[in-house]
C-alpha cells in the first residue's frame, strides 16, 4: 500500500504546460529522489502534493495521499493535512523562517494549531523535537531568534517545524543546496534518521545526482515536466538505460580535457601572497574590554604560477571570498603583502593599480547579479577595456567585444541584447567574456558554476579549460564543490578558519587528505561514483 500515489498528473499554468503525465509513488518509510535540472517541474510536483500551486495553475490527473484525493480535497481538508501529515522543508533556510518570531514560537505554532494543544504542552513538544534535530535546549533555548543561528542550524529548525507532528510524508525541496558540504552531510544524516525512526516517507528533490543517490531507495528523473526514467536507484544509475540518465550522470562527473597539465615550479610566480591577514572589527562584549577583532583571513601565504590552475576549497565562512577580494584589490589586508608579477599591489593608490587590474579579472558566482540589468552586453563586456593604456575607438572596441563573445561560444549578434535575454549558463559565458577581454594573466573565479545545472556546468568547465590551454590564463577557483576542484585544478589548497591548512596536487589532496579539515571536507563531499557503488551493495 503506497502512501502517496501520483497518477498521470498534468499541470498547466495559464497556457504553459508545466507537467505532463507524471507518475510517482512513495511507500511509508521509503525515500524517493526526484531529480531534474532547473525548470523540469520538480518543485511544481511538490507544490501540487501540498496544493500550494500558484494562481492560474490547473492540475489534472490523480494524486492520492493516504486514501485522500488531494486534487479534489477542500481547502479545509488541505489545511489539516499540511504541516500535520505532510511536512515540507524548503531550500533557503534564510527566508523560510519568520525573522521576528523566536524558534520556539515557530515550532510550537503548528503543534498548537493542529492538535489544539495548550501553550505549555506545545512548548514541551517543540523542545523535544528541537532536541531531536540537534538543537538541545541548554545551548539553543526556545527564545532564540533565527538571525542568532547559522545556516545549518536554521535548516534544522525548518526540519523541526516540518517533523514536529511526525508527518507521514516529508517533502524536502533542495534542503541542502544552500549549505556547504559538511553541513549538507549532517542534514542528510538527520533526514535519514528521522525517516527510519518514524517510518516516514521522504520525497527528496534535488538537482544533485550524487546527493539523491546517497539518500534515495528509488529515483525519478524529470525533464521538461515529463518522467524520463524511474526505478531503483542502484539499477537505474548502473544500467543507465535512458540516454538522459546517462547524460545527467556523465555531466555530473564531467572532467574537462586539459592535454597540457601545468608543471609546478616551471616558472616565476605570477601571484605571491605573503602572510596576509584581514581583521574585521568585532562586537563589543563588555563595556570595559576592547572589542576583539574577528580574523577572517589569518597569515595566509600562497603563490600561483602563470597558466597554473589552483583551487581554493573550504567550508562557507572560512575566508575564501575575503582572500579573493584582497587578491583582486577590492579589499585591503590588515597585514602582509600581495605581489602580482613581482610588484606589490597592497597599499597602493587606485591609479597605480591599473596595470595589475588589467591582467587580473574576476568571474562571480551569481550569473543574475553580476550584470547591470540596464546596460547592453556590448557595454558590459567592454567594461574592463578602459583599463587599456590606449583607449580603443568605438569600432575597435566593438570588434574586441565580438571577438571575446566568439571565444566563449556566443555570437557577435548578442552584443545588442540586455542581460535578461540570456539564460543562466549564457550569462556565465558573458561573465567570462568580460573577464578575458583584456587578455588577463590571472582570473579569479568565485564559485563560477555552483548556480548552474549540471549539463550547463560541464560546458562552462570545458570553456574554462579551453581558455586556460589556449590563452595560458592562470585560475584561482574558489569553491566548496570538490568535484569542480578535482576537474579543474592542478593544485588544491584547503582553507579552514582563515588559514590554509593543506596544499598539494589536486589528486593527492582530494584522495589522501592529511589535515583534519581536509579529511572532513572530503568525507562529506557527495561523490557519484562512491554513492553508486554503495547503493549497488545495499540493493544487490
Amino acid at each position, binding site marked *: 500500500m503506497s502512501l502517496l500515489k501520483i497518477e498521470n498528473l498534468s499541470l498547466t499554468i495559464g497556457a504553459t504546460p508545466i507537467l505532463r503525465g507524471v507518475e510517482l509513488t512513495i511507500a511509508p518509510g521509503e525515500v524517493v529522489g526526484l531529480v531534474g535540472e532547473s525548470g523540469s517541474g520538480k518543485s511544481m510536483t511538490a507544490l501540487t502534493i501540498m496544493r500550494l500551486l500558484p494562481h492560474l495553475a490547473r492540475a489534472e490527473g490523480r494524486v492520492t495521499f493516504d486514501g485522500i484525493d488531494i486534487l479534489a480535497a477542500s481547502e479545509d481538508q488541505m489545511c489539516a493535512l499540511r504541516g500535520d501529515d505532510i511536512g515540507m522543508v524548503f531550500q533557503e533556510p534564510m527566508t523560510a523562517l519568520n525573522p521576528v518570531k523566536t524558534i520556539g514560537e515557530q515550532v510550537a505554532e503548528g503543534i498548537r494549531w493542529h492538535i489544539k494543544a495548550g501553550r505549555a504542552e506545545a512548548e514541551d513538544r517543540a523542545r523535544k523535537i528541537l532536541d531531536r534535530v540537534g538543537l538541545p535546549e541548554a545551548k539553543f533555548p526556545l527564545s532564540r531568534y533565527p538571525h542568532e543561528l547559522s545556516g545549518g542550524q536554521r535548516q534544522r529548525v525548518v526540519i523541526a517545524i516540518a517533523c514536529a507532528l511526525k508527518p507521514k510524508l516529508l517533502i524536502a525541496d533542495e534542503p541542502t543546496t*544552500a549549505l556547504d558540504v559538511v553541513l549538507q552531510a549532517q542534514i542528510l544524516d538527520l533526514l535519514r534518521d528521522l525517516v527510519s525512526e518514524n517510518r516516514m516517507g521522504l520525497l527528496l528533490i534535488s538537482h544533485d545526482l550524487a546527493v539523491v543517490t546517497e539518500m534515495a531507495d528509488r529515483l525519478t528523473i524529470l525533464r521538461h515536466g515529463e518522467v524520463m526514467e524511474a526505478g531503483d536507484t542502484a539499477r537505474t544509475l548502473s544500467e543507465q538505460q535512458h540516454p538522459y540518465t546517462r547524460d545527467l550522470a556523465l555531466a555530473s562527473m564531467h572532467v574537462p580535457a586539459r592535454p597540457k597539465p601545468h608543471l609546478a615550479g616551471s616558472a616565476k610566480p605570477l601571484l605571491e601572497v605573503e602572510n596576509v591577514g584581514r581583521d574585521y572589527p568585532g562586537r563589543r562584549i563588555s563595556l570595559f574590554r576592547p572589542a576583539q577583532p574577528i580574523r577572517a583571513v589569518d597569515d595566509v601565504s600562497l603563490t600561483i604560477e602563470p597558466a597554473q590552475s589552483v583551487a581554493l576549497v573550504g567550508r562557507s565562512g572560512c575566508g575564501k571570498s575575503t582572500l579573493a577580494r584582497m587578491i583582486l584589490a577590492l579589499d585591503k589586508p590588515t597585514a602582509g603583502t600581495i605581489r602580482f608579477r613581482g610588484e606589490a599591489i597592497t597599499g597602493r593608490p587606485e591609479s597605480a593599480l591599473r596595470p595589475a587590474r588589467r591582467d587580473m579579472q*574576476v568571474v562571480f*558566482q551569481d550569473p543574475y*547579479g*553580476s550584470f*547591470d*540589468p*540596464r546596460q547592453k552586453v556590448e557595454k558590459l563586456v567592454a567594461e574592463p577595456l578602459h583599463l587599456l593604456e590606449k583607449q580603443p575607438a568605438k569600432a575597435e572596441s566593438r570588434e574586441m567585444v565580438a571577438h571575446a563573445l566568439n571565444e566563449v561560444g556566443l555570437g557577435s549578434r548578442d552584443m545588442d541584447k540586455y542581460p535578461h535575454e540570456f539564460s543562466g549558463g549564457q550569462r556565465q559565458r558573458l561573465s567570462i567574456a568580460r573577464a578575458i577581454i583584456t587578455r588577463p594573466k590571472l582570473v579569479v573565479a568565485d564559485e563560477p558554476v555552483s548556480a548552474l545545472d549540471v549539463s550547463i556546468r560541464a560546458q562552462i568547465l570545458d570553456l574554462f579549460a579551453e581558455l586556460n590551454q589556449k590563452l595560458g590564463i592562470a585560475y584561482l577557483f574558489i569553491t566548496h564543490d570538490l568535484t569542480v576542484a578535482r576537474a579543474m585544478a592542478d593544485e588544491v589548497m584547503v582553507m579552514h578558519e582563515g588559514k590554509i591548512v593543506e596544499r598539494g596536487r589536486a589528486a593527492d589532496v582530494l584522495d589522501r587528505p592529511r589535515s583534519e579539515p581536509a579529511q572532513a571536507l572530503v568525507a562529506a563531499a557527495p561523490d557519484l561514483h562512491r554513492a553508486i557503488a554503495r547503493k549497488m551493495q545495499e540493493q544487490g
Partner: protein
Amino acid sequence: MTMRVDLPEDTLAGVLAKAFGNRSFLIGLVITLLIVAVALVSFVWTPYDVTRLVIADKTQAPSATHWFGTDHFGRDILSMIMVGARNSIAVALVAVGIGMGIGVPLGAFAAARGGLVDEALMRVNDLVFAFPALLSAIMITAIFGPGAVNAIIAIGIFNIPVFARVARAGALAIWPREFILAARAAGKGMMRISVEHILPNIATLLLVQGTIQFALGILAEAGLSYVGLGAQPPMPSWGRMLFDAQTRMVMAPWMAIFPGMAIVVTVLGLNLLGDGIADILDPKSRRRR
C-alpha cells in the same frame, strides 16, 4: 547556491502595454496633460486680459460670458486660473529641478563614500529637512523681497534633502550588488560607477519621487502665495486668488471654489501619475487587480 531571479526587464512595448492597462496612470496622465495644455494655451490666448480691471463687472456669478465668474476687480476667473497654472507649474518644475540637480548627486556621493562623509552629509540633510519650507521662504523673502523666483528657491531648497535621501537609499541598495564589484574589479572609480551603474538603476525611483515632489511643489507654491510670499500682483496665482476670496466667501463663493478646484485636481492628477509610474516600473509595488 542562492538563486536570485531578477524579473525580466521590460521592453518599451511591454511598458507601454502595461501603462495603458493601469487606470491610475491613465487618469493621472490625462489630468496632467490637460493642466499643462491649459498653461501653454494661456501664453497665446486667454478669454480676457488678466491685468485689465473692469470694476463694472466685479464679483459676477458664473455665466455664459464669464464661465467661472469674475473677482472683486472684475477680472475673469477662468483666465486667471489659466495664467495661474503657468505660474504654478513653472515654480514647481524649477523647484523639483533644483532639488534633483543638487539632491541626487549629494545622495549618490554620500552612498558612494560612506563613513564620515556620508554621516556628515546626511545630518546636514536632516537639518534642512527639519526646517519648515514656509520658514525658509519667509527668511529668503525677508532678505531678497517677495516674488516668484524666491518662492522657487525656497521650495527648491526644501526639495534637496528629499531627493538626497531617496538617491542615497536607492544607491545603497545597488552598491553591494555583484555587478558593482565587477565594475570595481575593472578598475572603475567611484564617480564613474555612480554615473554609469548607480544612476540608471535608481532612475525610476527618482522619477516617481519627482512626480510626487512636483505635486507638493504646487501645493507649497499655493501656500506661499496665499501668505503673500509667492508671485506678486498683478501676476495671478492660485494661492493669491484663494486669499482674495477668503473675505468674500459668502458673497462670491465661486472666487474660492474654482482656484481651489484647480489646486485639488492638479495635485490629485500628479499623485495618480506618480502612483501609476511606480506601479508600472517597480515590480514589487505592482498590485494584483
